[in-house]
């Protein structure tokens, strides 16, 4: 089957990462991070998701056409 799951995984987590990190950057220093012990968890974890998503997309693009 010519369907590479790494594409949707990559798209999903790139979108999540961008949204969370972006929101985190905008709300840096806000009181909402008191709950997470003062860490801007949106920015930090958003960055992790972004890297994961982009890696998946990279692998998917590199692997395109190989899996016929």
């Amino acid at each position, binding site marked *: *089957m010519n369907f590479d*799951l790494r594409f949707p995984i990559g798209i999903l987590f790139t979108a999540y990462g961008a949204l969370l990190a972006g929101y985190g950057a905008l709300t840096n220093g806000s009181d909402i991070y008191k709950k997470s012990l003062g860490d801007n*968890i949106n920015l930090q974890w958003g960055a992790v998701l972004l890297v994961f998503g982009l890696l998946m997309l990279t692998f998917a693009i590199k692997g395109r056409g190989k899996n016929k």
Partner: protein
Amino acid sequence: MNSDAIHLGLLDYSILGIYILVVIGIGFVLKRHMKTAEDFFLSGRSIPVWVTGLAFLSANLGAQEVIGMAASGAKYGIMTSHFYWVGAIPAMIFLAVFMMPFYYGSKARSVPEYLKLRFDEKTRGLNAISFALMTVASSGASLHALAALMHLLLKWDYNVSLIASSIVVLAYVLKGGLSSAIYTEVLQFFLIVLGFSPLVIIGLNDLGGWSGMMSKIPETFTHSWKYMGTANNPMGVDWFAMVFGLGFVLSFGYWCTDFLVVQRAMAAKNMGDARRTPIIGAVPKMLFPAIVILPGMIALALVGTAGSGYSIPNGITGETDYNLVIPSLIAHYLPTGMIGLALTALMASFMSGMAGNVTAFNTVWTYDIYQSYIAPGKSDSHYMWMGKFATVAGIVISIGFAYVAKNVNNIMDFLQLVFGFVNAPVFATFLLGMFWKRATGHGAFIGLLTGTLAAVIFHGISSPQPLAPGETLPWIKGAWLGCHISFTSSMAQNFWLAIVAWSVCFVVTIVVSLVTARTKSDEELKGLVFSLTPTQREENEPVWLRPALLGSLVLFAALILNIIFW
């Protein structure tokens, strides 16, 4: 947190919305590939092994797993890891090394169909019907848990949550069949890992790391084996009942014969990949306690920390509801944004748990019940149509079961009970079927029936706690034929029920087989029974890819984990 609603922001809703769009999108993309019934039910045996491996694991990551294991983490501590390192890994490896060759090699399209090839029509029918009922019941339990949780946390209407999530599952399963379900399960796997690990990281930081957490929970919660000598531990189970009941009977009955998980391995490209599927799934499975049990222990430690401001919330009944451990930690630690991610992960696990059950149901219904007994010899497109119809019907019946589950407090205990009745005897049948060529169809059928009957009777005469004279229990807990045997916990009762059902099925199958004639010749049993099947040829595979070697490595790693956390 109090159990009042979590407030979701626009960002949180967007995260949930994006997930729903992506899974439905996958369904629509896959629709192009759904040309034959085999594509719809078996994914055309074409899915890459890392995907089947993760789906194999995630098919089991439903309500029972995520919510239930965190609850158990808070109730029993590290002992909960027995559900993984004893109650899952060995069975997964056994399936990969010994049983998969018969499932995949026989070209059976389902587990019940294997029973037909190996034994006879009636054994298959019994298994198919009980399995079909079990899948829709589990799917209904998933659905109920989701809707109840959304109602409690977000104040969403119960009925609306129930119907809306059913429609999402219906949309993608109807379009993409088993492939949709498998791909969504893998998405959900990553969501769970990436959505819940921040919770564990922040929680451990808050408590002063691992040792800080351990110092705040009772000593009996900090070891997996140390207090298993007698049943005088948080679980109320001794090592024998745990190893035999959970580690052997329930675990092998589930991982080695439940079509829901075996179906994922059957979707692999070739025999080697089919056998590696459970092994690949076993690796993250081994590490999952870190994400699902640890939150429970963190919650317990927080409750014991003065000034943490945290308590495990009360459920609808007004008593402490351990199933709320994960949601309450989400509310305690995560800001808007991350809340959306974690809640989406939770909802994804419920929905894909349901999708997994529905895809197993539509296959067994169509191939093993409809094609076998109701309308044999129809065209391929007719069966594909029936598969789609069964998908809709399966979901409608699940909704019915959800309302049944609404009246049962502990879903985990309820599912364990059902697995005890249905699955416990089944593994004896497969063990004898695969490794003893003398086992006959009559033996298997009567063995299964008496095994299940023994389970039901055992449930009727046993009680999860000692009862005073004249005291009665709700029937779901047992002792409806009077209390003749009592245990120290419902878990101990369940494990012993499984042991009894399995043993009765095992003995009865042997006895009846010996007094009945074989109906299948050695030639017919080739590829279905161990002693009549040529050894797997693995010479064309590199040594490091061979299932026996990989499986041994995983087992060794599980052993090390048991020793570390003994």
